[in-house]
């Protein structure tokens, strides 16, 4: 229709647009990718606070062996919802929904995502999912942990469990919609002047994440639908006494939920690959290595799920295959880590909050990654299965990894999103408290796990008490670490120093527009003339040319000498 009109009228005024959105636009079904990105980020952060409070309540209960702060049923409900909220309503939506939506169109030079309305719909599936999870507390709360293994999930608080399932189906649908959108946007809407090797690494990471979510999420949906029928409609897929099998659920669950780990960390790796070169003012080391390793993680990540089931009666050949594949995932991850370290090497590093969180992530993630390698081997895994060692491992990866990365991203792109800088002293306070809190909370848990303290229980043997006290103190430090951050964000958003278009001197396309960007991102689309990480390339080119010339001169001299020798 629009085309037919255009044909009739050779020239048409471009449609009038408001210059910027009003505050209330952020509470509506807005189709602008930047609005949706901020909606995702803010909503996710609210859920982060809720999930965090649940964690603090649980740690208070666990502070001493005799503590009776919350009753066991509520403890179980907190346990389930803490895990679920942190994964499905905080890290995944913040990383891929928030940063992905905000940055991908800006980075590829598009005016919006490929399907703006689908995008808005995907976001608006999240608040009802959260409401279902929190509402489940009125029905006793889902008690079966975030994995919701049957038979436990089919015999406890059924209404609450069904609400939990629906919530996950909602966020899963949202995730699939988002993935379709990201894949088509990156694939088709990259501006023609941008070569594939000029695509920012965050977009590569988003592409890999989306592919992974696209193929793994529906399998979880299938498993959850079967579970829903088992709970509510009398089927027996997961009831062994009627011909069903509980291990099938575990396969369906982990086929999604192990890749979900990469859904949580791949976009964060993307954030790292943007923050580190810009804040170190140095070209990224190994562009293709980082881009391909994202895709490699995405591929290998689909074949590792059984390492969660080494104790579920898995046959030895399966253990062997999945041990090897699990250990192989560590390779592309290591490639990334080394590339970032190599990028830092000799860089002109700005040690600001974004950089501190990035470096913090590197060290925390290495600890989590190494304990992951130990857990990937059956002998260790069988020994520490369902103990605090596992809790320590995945909190190092997910808190020390993903959450640190999200913070780094917020400190890095806050100026772009709001037009104002965050306060550095507050940011550094936030970082120091977070770093201390993380290690104080989760490092001692390795010890607890190796000694055999089981996870998921409200009561424990008094021999573990001393270490638990340390963990609880750490949890409170972590809880307080949010305060400087909150003050910082709220204050800076209103009164912070004006940022300007490009406060860090970044070279990817999002820095070429105003801060905050216009509604359609650019008045005139930019043209890509150099890669996103070509810091100081001209200077280097000049230097290299000079060196070449010098060498040439030197060669000449040598020739002369040789000539003399000949004489």
């Amino acid at each position, binding site marked *: 229709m629009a085309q037919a009109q255009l044909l009739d009228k050779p020239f048409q005024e471009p449609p009038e647009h408001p210059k910027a959105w009003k505050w209330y636009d952020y509470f509506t079904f807005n189709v602008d990718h930047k609005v949706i990105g901020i909606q995702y980020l803010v909503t996710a952060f609210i859920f982060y606070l809720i999930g965090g409070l649940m964690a603090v309540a649980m740690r208070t209960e666990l502070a001493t062996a005799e503590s009776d702060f919350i009753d066991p049923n509520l403890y179980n409900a907190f346990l389930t919802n803490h895990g679920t909220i942190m994964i499905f309503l905080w890290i995944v939506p913040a990383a891929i929904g928030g940063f992905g939506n905000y940055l991908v169109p800006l980075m590829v030079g598009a005016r919006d995502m490929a399907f703006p309305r689908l995008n808005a719909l995907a976001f608006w599936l999240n608040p009802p999912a959260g409401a279902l999870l929190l509402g489940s507390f009125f029905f006793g709360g889902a008690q079966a942990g975030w994995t919701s293994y049957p038979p436990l999930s089919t015999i406890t608080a059924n209404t609450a469990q069904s609400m939990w399932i629906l919530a996950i189906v909602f966020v899963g649908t949202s995730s699939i919609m988002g993935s379709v959108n990201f894949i088509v946007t990156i694939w088709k809407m990259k501006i023609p002047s941008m070569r594939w090797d000029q695509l920012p690494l965050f977009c590569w990471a988003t592409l890999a994440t989306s592919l992974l979510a696209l193929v793994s999420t529906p399998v979880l949906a299938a498993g959850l639908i079967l579970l829903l029928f088992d709970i509510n409609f009398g089927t027996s897929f997961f009831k062994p006494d009627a011909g069903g099998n509980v291990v099938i659920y575990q396969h369906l669950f982990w*086929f999604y939920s192990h890749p979900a780990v990469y859904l949580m960390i791949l976009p964060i790796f993307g954030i790292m690959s943007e923050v580190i070169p810009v804040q170190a003012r140095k070209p990224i080391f190994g562009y293709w290595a980082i881009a391909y390793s994202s895709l490699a993680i995405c591929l290998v990540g689909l074949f590792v799920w059984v390492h969660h089931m080494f104790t579920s009666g898995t046959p030895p050949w399966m253990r062997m295959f999945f041990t090897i594949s699990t250990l192989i995932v560590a390779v592309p991850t290591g490639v990334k880590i080394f590339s970032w370290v190599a990028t830092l090497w000799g860089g002109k590093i700005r040690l600001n909050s974004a950089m501190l969180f990035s470096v913090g992530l590197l060290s925390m993630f290495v600890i989590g990654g190494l304990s992951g390698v130990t857990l990937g081997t059956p002998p260790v895994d069988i020994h520490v299965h369902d103990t605090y060692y596992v809790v320590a491992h995945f909190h190092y990866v997910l808190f020390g990894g993903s959450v640190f990365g999200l913070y780094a991203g917020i400190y890095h792109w806050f100026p772009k999103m709001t037009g104002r800088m965050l306060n550095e002293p507050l940011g550094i306070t936030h970082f120091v408290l977070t770093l201390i809190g993380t290690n104080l909370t989760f490092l001692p848990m390795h010890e607890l796990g190796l000694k055999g303290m089981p996870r998921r229980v409200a009561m424990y043997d008094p021999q573990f008490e001393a270490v638990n006290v340390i963990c609880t103190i750490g949890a409170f430090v972590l809880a307080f670490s949010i305060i400087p951050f909150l003050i910082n964000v709220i204050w800076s958003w209103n009164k912070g120093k004006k940022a300007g278009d490009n406060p860090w001197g970044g070279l990817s396309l999002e820095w070429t527009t105003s801060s905050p960007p216009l509604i359609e991102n650019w008045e005139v689309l930019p043209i890509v003339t150099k890669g996103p990480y070509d810091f100081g390339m001209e200077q280097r080119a000049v230097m290299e040319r000079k060196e070449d010339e010098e060498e040439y001169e030197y060669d000449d001299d040598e020739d002369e000498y040789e000539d003399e020798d000949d004489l």
Partner: protein
Amino acid sequence: MDGSVIDTAAPLGEVLSPAEEAHHEEHPDFRVLGLLVFLISESLMFGGLFVTYIFLRGLNEQWPPEGTEIELLLPTINTIILVSSSFVIHYGDVAIKNDDVKGMRKWYWITAAMGAIFLLGQAYEYLTLGYGLKTNIFSNCFYIMTGFHGLHVFIGLLLILGVLWRSRRPGHYSHQKHTGVAMAEIYWHFVDVIWIVLFALLYLLTIFG
């Protein structure tokens, strides 16, 4: 077109040239691509169900358990109807590419009728089988898988009816502009392919396997 920001900002220069306008490819619209990507996802959802079924079949010695007999005649007729409807809907797509809205409407109506017959046949099968969802593990799988597929056929039917509804407006679809028509067709083919796998797993392998 779709009220999206992208469409309003479509590059003016490209659309202006009447020579280019004649080209079929000259209206970049990613909806078909988006649907294809989405269908990858959908097929994995069915994949999850298929794998569960194969697992359960392997775990249970007697398959199907006593008291659950599979009828073959009606489902075979149903399969023939559904598979041939894929060819019928394709003629509709060919028609619209030749600017033949009338022909497209004809073929889409026939497809819709065939889809409806398939669903009615399935409902009849449910009523006459003599066992329900809860009877045993096989019937669990049978009803979930066929029911879930039936739901997809129903959605496909709605898409086709939506196309028919929209095609009443003159000029709504043409050889240049038929994304909706193409999407309904692609979805219908997808539903068909899934049914072929499902039919093989649930009916053929149960009886002859």
